[in-house]
């Protein structure tokens, strides 16, 4: 999972909420996300555009796809179209015309386009950003294959180079996202070789479909976090698994991190490594600790160094604030540094960790 999709700190969220309140006069961005062309994004989007117009909203269409299926063309019908500008075979939204027209909603079919040279913004998503800034709501469609941060993954799945892309931060900024899901067509029975290719194609599409579902879930998780923050709810819903590994110099971090990584990946969850700062630890312990933190980091964990008089409280307060669902600890901690300080930290952690699972690892 790209780092940008990770959970944000409350400060970051607050900043975002504030900037949102300042900039937009109720203009909303809605994205229809699909995993391939032909799953029906355009159809769903234009159907919504029509419904909105029937409910009395002032809807215009700012961009259509160069090729359109007949049912989409039919839906488009008499919706007001602001003609695109074509330069050397490439098209761009007529941004000035849209902003002059000031509709309440503008429909942009296909968000991932680069503008031809000479336009104010190099990309279409920046045009959309400008419309939102001008107070115009936008509904738009995008294929998962054009998300910038997923590019390497997508290229390894499809074997194709992806040129125009949209940054995931823009997708995360959407007020609403809707996934257009449909399983890939089943391969028809053909010659063994065709059948092979068809099966491979289906597998590739399934990977893309999975990615699209997870991206949509991450956007939704982001919205949920914001919602809870805005309403001052400190508790977490646990809709996303968050695994936190408690790191100490003596812990068997290798097995903990491996298991945590595999669980976080399987659940499409988040991985955190946490260490409670201890003053005056030996050089040997410091070296062991550094190595263990590096190991967790390379497994994709975000690392948190915590401070607090009581290590157990520091760990659990932090885990609770981040909505951790699974806490990983090593049980040699009873004979190590902590035990000298605290007696039996395993017992204490289990006692205090209401609402999350604790996984105790052998050493």
């Amino acid at each position, binding site marked *: 999972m790209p780092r940008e999709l990770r959970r944000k700190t409350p400060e970051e969220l607050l900043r975002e909420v504030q900037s949102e309140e300042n900039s937009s006069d109720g203009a909303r961005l809605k994205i229809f996300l699909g995993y391939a062309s032909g799953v029906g994004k355009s159809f769903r989007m234009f159907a919504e555009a029509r419904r909105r117009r029937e409910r009395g909203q002032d809807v215009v269409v700012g961009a259509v796809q160069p090729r359109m299926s007949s049912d989409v063309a039919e839906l488009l019908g008499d919706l007001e179209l602001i003609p695109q500008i074509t330069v050397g075979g490439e098209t761009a939204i007529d941004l000035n015309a849209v902003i002059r027209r000031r509709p309440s909603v503008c429909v942009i079919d296909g968000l991932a386009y680069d503008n031809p040279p000479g336009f104010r913004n190099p990309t279409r998503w920046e045009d959309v950003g400008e419309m939102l800034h001008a107070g115009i709501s936008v509904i738009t469609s995008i294929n998962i294959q054009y998300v910038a941060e997923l590019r390497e*993954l997508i290229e390894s799945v499809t074997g194709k180079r992806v040129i125009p892309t949209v940054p995931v931060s823009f997708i995360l900024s959407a007020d609403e996202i809707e*996934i*257009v899901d449909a399983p890939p067509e089943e391969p028809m029975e053909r010659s063994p070789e065709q059948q092979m290719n068809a099966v491979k194609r289906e597998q590739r599409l399934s990977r893309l479909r999975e990615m699209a579902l*997870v991206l949509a879930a991450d956007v939704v998780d982001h919205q*949920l976090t914001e919602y809870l923050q805005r309403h001052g709810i400190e508790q977490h819903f646990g809709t996303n698994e968050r695994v936190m590994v408690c790191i100490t110099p003596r812990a068997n971090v290798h097995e903990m991190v491996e298991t945590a990584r595999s669980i976080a990946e399987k659940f499409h969850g988040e991985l955190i490594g946490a260490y409670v700062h201890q003053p005056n630890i030996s050089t040997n312990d410091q070296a062991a600790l550094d190595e263990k933190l590096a190991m967790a980091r390379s497994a994709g964990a975000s690392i948190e160094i915590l401070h607090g008089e009581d290590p157990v409280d520091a760990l659990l307060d932090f885990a609770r604030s981040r909505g951790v669902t699974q806490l990983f600890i090593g049980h040699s901690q009873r004979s190590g540094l902590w035990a000298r300080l605290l007696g039996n930290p395993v017992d204490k952690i*289990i006692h205090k960790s209401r609402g999350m699972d*604790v*996984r105790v690892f052998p050493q």
Partner: protein
Amino acid sequence: MAEQRTGKLKIFMGYAAGVGKTYQMLEEAQELKALGVDVVVGYFEPHGRKDTIARMEGLELIPRKNVEYRGSVFEEMNTDAIIERKPAVCVVDEFPHTNVPGSPRLKRWEDVQSLLESGIDVLTTMNIQHLESLNDQVWQITGIRVRETIPDWVVQRADQVVMVDVTPRALLNRLERGVVYGREKAERALQNFFRESTLVALREMALRQTAHEVEHRSAGDTADGWAGHGAYGRPGAHHKILILVTADPETAMLIRRAKRVGDFLDAEVFAVTVQSGGLAALAEMERESVERHLNFARNLHIETRVLEADDLAATLVDFARRNQITQIFLARPRERDWRSLFGRDLIQRVVGLARDMQVVIVSEREMVEY
């Protein structure tokens, strides 16, 4: 007679009433019919929604069966009549439904199994909150204990799971306009399941579950080398999970959670109870609880065993070691039991003895407070 082909199952997954599951399912049925496929509707719940009812036009409906129970007549799907009619595809709304007592099968998903076994393909609908392994989490989020659940293995065996998505805002709009429910029902629905934050959370769970179902179906895909990214765990690492079943009410939650983790890790899951004189020696109430929990585990396709021994911790760990268990799952004692020392002593002893295994202490989820 030629061997019967098993029918294919497709589930339209949603996160609330009104997202459009039935509509999308009927749309697909209409498309199949237009292609000349023999489609019937085995069960359809109109909920008074006009545009959904319109999608039924021209589809053959198999009349429901009357079942008498305590002097009243209830209508249920007529599974036998559908099997006799033998269509290629049958549409069955509301997969998690529980039949009225006296019906041949307790659950609609069992009726659907019969249809599939008869070689009939089935299209059906369900909401995420009915998935057994998410029951505790759904309760945590909504405050509602969903009774009509579907074991995860039933969903895992479906050939396809499709997410029917609509944003909570659009759903709430529909609700306000009265499209989804009747007016008075809408009022009540708005207060629990339909609170916006609840909808957002359920929707996230549905998206993640569908992603998992998609991944589960394309597992074993190593042809393009990309699966390396998804090669979870160490190669050859084989997980085996053991659950300790007791009479304590937390056991149901423990079983659900352990099974869910097991399913995601492709682990085998076992459940044992340790009783010094076997089940027969237990007081009636306690025995019933233990038996209910063992039954519950078996319904989720977990192998169970009753061990007769005095020393609970030692017996559990010994059984685990002899069966190459890698993870032991225990329930966290309730707050009021914490001081009794029995529960925490058990955890301490198991952790101390199982020095070669992971021990997972599962906690009950806490209700979200507004």
